[in-house]
């Protein structure tokens, strides 16, 4: 049944309804501004947000949700990267452009270290990853993953309230490995070929950690678990690596979610068409995003809706570069309308962007996206929308 009075629909209820493939008052709209845009809106150096928590990124995001009048999606508690006990930090160098900070934690096998740069106007990036020497550093990491306490993981559960859904992220195995591995994605990929036995051992420990984390998260009544799988993209990875290393994580987490009645939501940007299909047949994932279209991705939204819309809520996919960053508000409106026509029919669609919006995405374009959902995404569709969708065969 559709509740007609939109005041009855909070953003959280609206999103959860769509995630369960239902129809709320309208299509929810969640441009992915999880990172750079909220930091920009603070008008402070980015290191204030990312290093000094002034304000913390999650609070900057909630302020951005209010600023744009959008539906919110809180994903700032990440089980994989959860720092508990808190890592030690030491500022090594500060210039006008960046602050370099060493992070470390001691384990019975020795110290785990990471060197991170916090630029003044961009998010932080890792200069030196945790795993530099395979033989020396992997035992420390395995100990850390086995012993990391998770009791405080969902401590920010209250922050988003009815402004949006609360999700806790768990990285796919590729996401985890790229995060910890020194030498970047290329080295991380080569490890699968050069250190296969060691990678299998690390994978097993990670699966055990993921099981522990997922059970804890559903127990804490999170609205969803986000399978953070940017690095699982087939722009970076391959179907065989996805099947061997990531799919077991996705199956495990989505199965735990299904049993607990919690949404399992996967983000895999770039080329992901094949991953959508694999997940459709082999997992309990409920939501797939961001369904990036060419040139960055390979997803056709209407096609995915037709083939997999009976299982997945789809979230996407207005292009972040061509449209959100470099297009006009009219371009945004047109592409948003096309997305709604392609995927909103019957519910189970969240209007969003094809990946995270860049820092300099114009405010007018973000407002245009949100307005498009309110204007063209109403349920039940009005006559004009029905005719338009009929014309386009959506």
């Amino acid at each position, binding site marked *: 049944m559709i509740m007609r009075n939109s005041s009855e629909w909070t953003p959280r209820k609206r999103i959860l309804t769509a995630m369960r493939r239902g129809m709320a008052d309208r299509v929810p709209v969640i441009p992915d501004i999880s990172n750079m845009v909220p930091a920009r809106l603070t008008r402070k150096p980015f290191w204030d947000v990312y290093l000094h928590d002034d304000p913390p990124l999650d609070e900057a995001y909630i302020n951005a949700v209010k600023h744009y009048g959008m539906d919110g999606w809180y994903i700032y508690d990440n089980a994989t990267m959860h720092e508990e006990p808190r890592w030690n930090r030491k500022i090594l160098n500060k210039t006008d452009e960046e602050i370099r900070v060493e992070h470390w934690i001691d384990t019975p096998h020795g110290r785990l270290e990471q060197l991170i740069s916090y630029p003044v106007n961009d998010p932080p990036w890792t200069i030196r990853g945790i795993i530099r020497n395979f033989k020396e550093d992997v035992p420390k990491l395995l100990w850390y993953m086995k012993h990391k306490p998770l009791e405080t993981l969902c401590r920010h559960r209250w922050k988003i309230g009815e402004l949006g859904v609360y999700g806790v992220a768990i990285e796919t195995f590729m996401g985890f490995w790229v995060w910890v591995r020194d030498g970047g994605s290329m080295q991380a990929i080569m490890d699968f070929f050069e250190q296969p036995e060691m990678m299998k051992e690390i994978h097993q420990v990670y699966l055990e950690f993921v099981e522990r984390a997922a059970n804890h998260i559903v127990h804490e009544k999170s609205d969803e678990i986000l399978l953070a799988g940017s690095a699982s993209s087939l722009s970076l990875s391959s*179907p065989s690596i996805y099947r061997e290393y990531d799919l077991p994580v996705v199956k495990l987490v989505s199965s735990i979610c299904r049993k607990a009645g919690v949404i399992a939501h996967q983000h895999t940007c770039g080329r992901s068409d094949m991953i959508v299909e694999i997940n459709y047949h082999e997992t309990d994932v409920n939501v797939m995003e961001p369904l990036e279209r060419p040139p960055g991705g390979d997803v056709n939204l209407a096609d995915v809706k037709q083939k997999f819309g009976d299982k997945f809520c789809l979230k996407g996919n207005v292009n972040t*570069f*061509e449209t959100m960053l*470099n297009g006009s508000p009219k371009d945004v409106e047109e592409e948003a309308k096309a997305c709604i026509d392609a995927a909103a029919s019957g519910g189970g669609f969240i209007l969003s962007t094809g990946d995270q919006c860049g820092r300099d995405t114009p405010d007018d374009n973000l407002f245009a996206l949100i307005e498009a959902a309110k204007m063209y995404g109403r349920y039940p569709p009005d006559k004009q929308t029905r005719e338009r969708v009929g014309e386009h065969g959506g």
Partner: protein
Amino acid sequence: MEDKALQDLVTALENGYRDRVVKITQELLEKGVAPEIILKSGLILGMSLVGEKMKKNEMYLPEVLLSASAMQSSLKVLKPYLARDRVESRGKVVLGTVKGDMHDIGKNLVGIMLQGSGFEIIDLGTNVTPEMFADAVKTHQPAILGLSAMLTTTMLNMKTTIDYIGGLGLRSKMRIIIGGASVRQQFADEIGADGYARDAVAAVEKVKEFLA
């Protein structure tokens, strides 16, 4: 016999079998096959097939990296013989990700595919200042300078780099190509780059076009 071994080399390279690629390379050299033939009819041909497959989504980055790793191992074996025979590369390309940007996957892939096409690559890495680019141009005198940027903020440093190099009078014998997720042809035109490539395969085509 030689053709069959070269075909085996191409197949092993496509499959990323590093040890086999090295073994066949050594066997061909022992049989007296000219290193230039091994390079052109084995490695370059093999990597061009890899590029084609990548373009058609029949190969993925990890598999391309395996093939590239096999090619580099073979090149190590070949290098002294190529030097002995004075076989020259198709041209020098200096590559780097501009200042403030640590992203390197696309840039590395461009380097791999160009190397696989017979070009000599001088990779300056990431977070490269205009001064570092200029020094490399003076030292190596490349035919092509490739600038990469992933971020919308750092792409502006492409213009700074181009302006700096132009100000030093270093552009007359060199073309500048830019690429990266946030970059488009229009931006290349605006900042005075000579070309734009949307991916590694397009970068190889653009370099070949400029050096034809």
